């Protein structure tokens, strides 16, 4: 007979990887996320919204960097609001911030393995996981280059590598495609599709075509509230030729946003 710890008996499958109810998060004094209800499961979810819609604040709250000001937030079945113990959820989390700071003297490999160590991965697994993450983002040739010598797109990919190094179950990428050339963007979409098969990936972006190409679901928010949630195909059906946009999805996006703004004005 031996004692069984709570960690061993905890559920390994959750109805939602990310579950927010009436979530409120402050950015400074401003309530940037104001009563958001959101449930996300496995797959790639594209987070769309105008500037100042609360995308980055929502990402920070989901990454457990910011403490919610109200409502409930559950990641992988464990509550991360208030005084809860965050370590369990944080071990299964990957996060690429919008403006990510880095240590210019570190090489890509040192940077990724430092973050792997901070994510409390078992020490013997770190070198192999680091190499795999660097390979997956296509930086193998630059693995031993110093971060300050990298271009903007390469830095962004190094950021993605540190986010995926611990095989996260919840992966939050805030504008990962900024600074990538068209070919790298295609590679990143491929990587996102691959990651989305067994993890919950939330990608915040301004580019509607990225969402349509790589995502299984679209989440549209405005002023900190959920406006619409559905598949990219359903998004394309929302608009018609009267709405601005160069593709069906862009027309659908502007149609949804206009309809929401008109309702809010009434």
């Amino acid at each position, binding site marked *: 007979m031996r004692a069984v710890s709570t960690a061993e008996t905890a559920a390994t499958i959750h109805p939602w990887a990310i579950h927010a109810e009436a979530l409120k998060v402050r950015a400074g004094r401003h309530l940037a996320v104001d009563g958001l209800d959101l449930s996300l499961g496995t797959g790639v979810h594209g987070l769309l919204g105008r500037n100042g819609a609360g995308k980055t604040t929502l990402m920070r709250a989901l990454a457990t960097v910011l403490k919610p000001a109200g409502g409930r937030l559950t990641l992988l079945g464990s509550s991360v609001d208030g005084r809860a113990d965050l370590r369990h959820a944080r071990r299964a*989390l990957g*996060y690429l911030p919008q403006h*990510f700071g880095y240590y210019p003297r570190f090489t890509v490999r040192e940077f990724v393995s430092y973050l792997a160590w901070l994510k409390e991965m078992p020490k013997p697994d770190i070198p192999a996981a680091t190499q795999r993450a660097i390979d997956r983002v296509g930086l193998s040739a630059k693995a031993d280059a110093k971060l300050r010598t990298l271009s903007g797109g390469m830095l962004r990919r190094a950021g993605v590598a540190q986010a995926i190094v611990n095989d996260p179950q919840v992966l939050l990428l805030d504008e990962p495609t900024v600074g990538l050339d068209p070919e790298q963007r295609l590679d990143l979409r491929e990587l996102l599709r691959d990651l989305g098969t067994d993890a919950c990936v939330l990608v915040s972006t301004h580019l509607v075509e990225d969402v349509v190409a790589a995502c299984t679901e679209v989440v549209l928010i405005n002023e900190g509230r959920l406006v619409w949630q559905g598949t990219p195909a359903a998004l394309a059906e929302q608009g018609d030729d009267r709405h601005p946009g160069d593709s069906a999805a862009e027309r659908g996006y502007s149609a949804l946003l206009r309809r929401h703004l008109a309702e809010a004005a009434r």
Partner: protein
Amino acid sequence: MTTHPTLNEIDRYADGDPGLDEATVWSIEVHLETCADCRARLAGSTTAESRALVAEVAAAVDRGIAAGPAPRSRSFFRTPVRQRWFVAALLPWVAMTAGVLGTAAVLTYFLSELPSIVLLLAPLAPLPGVAAAWSRRGDPAWELIVGTPSAGLTMLLRRTAVVLVLVIPVLAAFAVLGDSRADLALMLLPCLAFTAATLLLGSLVGVHRAAVGLMAAWAAAVVAPSLATAELPVLLQPAATGGWAVVTVVLATLTLLRANSFRRVTSF
């Protein structure tokens, strides 16, 4: 544990006898993986052909090792890169602290009617370093770090320990070499108490703000009056040593009780 195969079976396995059925081959292989004795027997029954193959592979592996990059030497001075970076980032702050203390020592030497300025400033010595070690400006990757499971009091304490390891020898040197011959305990205990107070206050308002606030408060409430009156305050008389020790322990305990509040970005 599987039963040992017979010597006859091992001979036939080593020969690659086609008469040996697959199930037997598998069970022999599974057994060989765990049994050193049978592996030794197998080595004795290998054919010349397989010995030649093994020798060829060994030579190729040796060539590959000789041609590849040399393994990294793990010399004594080779510390993990993150520690080297962290110490390098702190050195300017420690140098500044040493510079201020040196100036204070020179002033104390020339203005002998004033109380020891080194002793007055000693409690504040680690605070700039602690503030730099746990602030958004001091750590460019704060947003990445604060979302990891290791972020928290343990990490802050580790960084604070590095600052203290760098600052305390400087203080001790001033205490021993300075002509005031200040009491070593009276230099170091207030310094630890202020470090603990910074961490405790930092759990509420952020370590950076806490350090700045405490430095301003000490300068206004103790340093300025004692320079004006030219008397050492009662807080820094030898009799106060016990009080400082008690305060340090109480503040450190309270900080440990508030450990959870260092997990969010508010403490940065």
